[in-house]
């Protein structure tokens, strides 16, 4: 492709952004949205007489969180451990399976539709079964369901990435008498990394969902999902919402950590965000 100039106007930057710094200013709209939503939420509960249990005021949730913070954070950590375990196991297996299968690109392409169909199965419906296999009160059953949830997107994306290399790149490597392992290291894996990280980010969210849904069907008293459920059942809704907030917080933090790792790993590559 020639190096012809392409005339598409770049995004103009105002004077303010040049002073405050681009990254800080980038977050301003999100902050504004957050503040507006919190204010509207807080006020409309009172104004519209929405029943307490449906959506307590943010201030009530916050104070409840503060009162129970020890218990909530312990429960969040408990559940997060299940999610993390499932994430690690499922993603590792997914990557391994993809690495093995990528050795035979034609076989991979033949199997790909089945792998994708398998990921179309509502795996969450298997949560009661993993509870039956492993004790419902241990972490293992939740790790299992989270692992299964994480496996498929990571496997499919990694395999796709490993096998979607341009033929000319492979030819180039062969002209250097590069062996399969070299081709993997230098061409296939770098091609797959962005797709794998996309799947890993999705897997962080899926792992938390898996853990909490697993807990719904039976779990330790210390688990966050069980805690939220029991509070809902006893109409302690501010407490339930506080638990939901903690679940969100852990999920977001998990996602951001993996997104941060992605940025480090993909230094120099064109970004998929933005």
């Amino acid at each position, binding site marked *: 492709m020639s190096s012809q100039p392409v005339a598409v106007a770049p995004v103009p930057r105002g004077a303010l952004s040049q002073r405050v710094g681009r990254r800080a200013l980038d977050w301003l709209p999100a902050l504004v949205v957050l503040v507006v939503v919190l204010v509207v939420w807080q006020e409309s509960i009172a104004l519209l007489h929405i029943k307490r249990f449906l959506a307590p005021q943010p201030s009530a949730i916050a104070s409840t969180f503060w009162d129970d913070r020890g218990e909530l954070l312990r429960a969040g950590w408990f559940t997060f451990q299940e999610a993390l375990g499932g994430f690690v196991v499922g993603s590792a297996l997914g990557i391994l399976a993809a690495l093995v299968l990528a050795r035979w690109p034609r076989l991979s392409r033949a199997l790909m539709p089945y792998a994708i169909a398998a990921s179309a*199965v*509502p795996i969450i419906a298997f949560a009661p079964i993993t509870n039956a296999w492993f004790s419902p009160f241990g972490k293992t059953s939740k790790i299992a369901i989270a692992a299964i949830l994480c496996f498929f997107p990571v496997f499919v994306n990694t395999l796709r990435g490993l096998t979607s290399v*341009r033929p000319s790149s492979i030819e180039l490597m062969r002209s250097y008498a590069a062996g399969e392992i070299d081709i993997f290291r230098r061409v296939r894996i770098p091609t797959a990394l962005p797709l794998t990280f996309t799947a890993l980010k999705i897997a962080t*969210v899926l792992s938390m*969902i898996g853990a909490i849904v697993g807990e719904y069907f039976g779990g330790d008293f210390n688990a966050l999902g069980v805690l*939220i459920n029991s509070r809902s059942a006893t109409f302690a809704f501010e407490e339930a919402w506080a638990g939901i907030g903690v*679940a969100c917080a852990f999920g977001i933090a998990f996602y951001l950590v993996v997104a941060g790792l992605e940025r480090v790993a993909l230094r120099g590559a064109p970004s998929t965000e933005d």
Partner: protein
Amino acid sequence: MGALRRAVVSGATVVAVLGVLVGAWELYRWIWISAGWTWPFVVDDTSMPHIHTIVQALFQHPTSGFGDILIVQLFHAALFTAKEAVVGFAIGATFGFLLGVLMSQWRVLQRGFLPYVVASQTVPILAVAPIVVVYLGSLNVAAWFSVAVIAAYLTFFPVAINTLRGLLSTDRRALELMHAFAAGRWTILWKLRVPAALPFIFSALKVAATASVVGAIIGEAPSSIQDGLGGYIVNFNQYYTLSPQNLWATNIIAALLGIAFFLAIVGAEKVVVRRAPEHVA
């Protein structure tokens, strides 16, 4: 290769793959029981029933002799869940698409909303589901529609993200061409960005189709809705040690439902999206 021959080959492959899976299941079962291994979990008739036990269960009456045989009950349950999922999918996909379009056109909207779109999926839907059902119920909304709303919640996310990505990754040279034609923002959107983004959008719709089924099942479970697959899963879970095959059978039906939704999108994609074939190694 005629279309008929291709279909027969595909069908045969599916049967072969299923055969391999069934064979693997029974083999695993036989090896683990014979050897007495307990890792990763104990294998017996409860944890891994024979495949034929599960299939047989479909044709038996699950509730001591009255009511339809299981497969008929599950079929109706699947239809019920499917209705929730389809409506949820329609709402979620439309909303996700519009959100993606808006975020693509104004960077400030993208910066303002994208973090929350991503964060929205960390809310444990299972915990929020009963609240949504009760609240909408107080507005005289049918319970199934509330579940559809929950399905929409899981559906909008992949569609919004991929629509945004697709609309923003338009070929710069094509954009330059449209500028040369003095085309305005919305013309460029409608005639260039959206058609060019269709492959992205369809790959999201495939994920979204599955998500809508998952959302429907998860929405039903805690909301005491008996008529759908989620309700059956909750029920059979309670009696798992007595009749494990019922839960397994329900799972198989749920799996088929998910795959059916997925295949529907694949079919739609073949009709709507016509692109040059890819060349990959």
